[in-house]
């Protein structure tokens, strides 16, 4: 596809105003195909804090209450999911991706990854107090 997203600072501010969320431009790659993202920048997320990150990004697939969804395939529920017990698991999946789930390593900072993993592990019926630190995220990259 042909569209390119070149988000300057004004673009960020603008969308922040429109959506309560924004995007920061990162590197660009991919010779693939008929998609704007192919030609466009890999854009990172500007949301801060676990709740905002979850609601604006993760909820696209895992749904607003972490309930997941089922179609021809499925998005696993994060709510009351025993796999959240070990913090390394959700941390790994967020950074590296899983099957069709894209890795978030290039889209989120260490702080953002830590925040959103900690948010998931302390909400939606999960209550695990051993938090992930940004340093642990950095070590996994």
């Amino acid at each position, binding site marked *: *596809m*042909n*569209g*390119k*997203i*070149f*988000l*300057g*600072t*004004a*673009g960020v501010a*603008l*969308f922040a105003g*429109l*959506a309560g*969320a924004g*995007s920061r431009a990162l590197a660009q*790659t*991919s010779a*693939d*195909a*008929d*998609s*704007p*993202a*192919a*030609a*466009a*920048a*890999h*854009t*990172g*997320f*500007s949301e801060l804090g676990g709740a905002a990150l979850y*609601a*604006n*990004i*993760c*909820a*696209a*697939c895992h*749904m*607003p209450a972490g309930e997941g*969804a*089922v*179609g*021809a*395939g*499925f*998005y696993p529920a994060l709510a009351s999911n025993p796999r959240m017990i070990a913090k390394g698991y959700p941390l790994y999946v967020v950074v590296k*991706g899983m*099957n*069709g*789930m*894209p*890795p978030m390593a290039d*889209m989120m900072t260490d702080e953002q990854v830590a925040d959103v993993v900690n948010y998931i592990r302390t909400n939606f019926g999960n209550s695990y107090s051993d938090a992930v630190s940004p340093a642990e995220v950095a070590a996994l990259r």
Partner: protein
Amino acid sequence: MGEFPQIPMTKRDLLSMIGKSAGAGAMLMAMAPLGQAHASTFTGPINLQGGGTGKSVLILGAGIAGMVAALELTRAGYQVQVLEYNARVGGRCWSLRGGDSYTELGGATQNCTFSDGNYLNPGPWRIPTEHGGVIHYCKELGVPLEPFQQNNYNAYLHHTDAFDGKPQRYKTIQADYYGHVAELLAKAVRQNALSDTVTADDAEILLESLRSWGALDRNMRYVASNAASGRRGWAKGPGGGLTAEPIPSEPMDLSSVLKSGLWRNIATHMTNEHQHAIFQPVGGMDRIAAGFGRAVGHLIRHNAKVTSIRQSDAGVVAEYEDTRTGEKLTAAADYCVCTLPLSILAQIPLNVGPDMAAAIRAVPYRPSLKVGLEFKRRFWEQDEQIYGGITSTNLPISQISYPSDKYGSSGPGVLLAAYSGGSFAYEMTALPPEERIRRTLEMGAMIHPQYREEFVSGISVGWHRVPFVLGCFGMWSEETRARHYSNLCQIDNRVVLAGEHASYIGGWIEGAVTSALDAVTRLHQRIQAA
């Protein structure tokens, strides 16, 4: 030339002769060195020689890859059965029209209320010249194509930081960018700054070419002139009668053009896949799916959710569930062509070797969003003289594409009002559909203020919420290609995969077509050899 008579021949004579003596396949191969063949790996219709030998093939997925496989294997004499999750054929080759309803994961249902003849293609939406496989099947299946307006010189380039956010005509930016670059280069040549690489003879030719390319004046300057205005647009255009004399416009200065960043969009239209001529099916992309449906629809079982795929020395058995009745069923065959997206297949038990299994799990799916908005009138044509083509913007909507059909009609028209990837696609997908429409309207109105007055309705598709694919298309990196691609495409005992994910033309229908043709050809060879 050997056996050919020693008389002057045109290329066409030669090709006609090869065609008569050796068949169409040979002709297509012969065309390649003359630079006329299609640029994908499609080299003409396949012909699986030797018959299906009484064998059966189970095809999973009735998208384009699955239906190409079904069509060609049936022709070869195989007994074919297809399982499809959706109630319709086509997969991502899909159009939404008035009367259609779409329920995404999470349960939100959108009812499309577009007027008759208007549509949104949520997935693929155009067919490049070089995608010869798709064009071949369109021709064969009676799917008429029409020109898709890719680059419209009168459409806009827009950046919120450039020209106070006022959109610029593509032609103006291109003319000024080319003109200034030509002038600069001409200056360097005339100052002998390039004499170490450009001979004096070549310098003369280069200068002449720069004058032509950049619309420079006799002094090799890019200035207000009839030549420059003939490209960038006039202050007052030419006409007839007493007030006919045109008034040239004033080019922008180089710095403004460079700092605007709008030159970035010039290269967009230069890639092979975006060069004119480029096409769309008349009436919507799903006309291609419908064409295949006419040919192989009787082989397809719909509403079939595959839950496991097991192969053994005896054959392949797929378990599936009828999504309407909940009934659990099985389908068995000697071989299996699986075209399920990898995002889905990775979640289904399948006993293939570790290499293919790893490949299936190695491909993340790209986020992507499309929004279609219907407006009461075609203001882009009536007010702004934009007939088809694409406006590009740095706003998260990324682009606005104007319909390439029914120019000049007075009724409502539908714009592709957002086509985005990256972070914005996730963010928009996470929102309720009505909120996606609201934000798309708000952003688009910065380019076309008429949005506010003329809006009728809209529909949005965030591909990560599409139940049958969980993403837009497979994203390969150089690393994953090197490590997994051939493992993905190899036949694993009785199972072979096909689809855009098993191609180097990811996200385009041509990838699905060429992948399916390659897969069934290799499968057929293996069966013949067995």
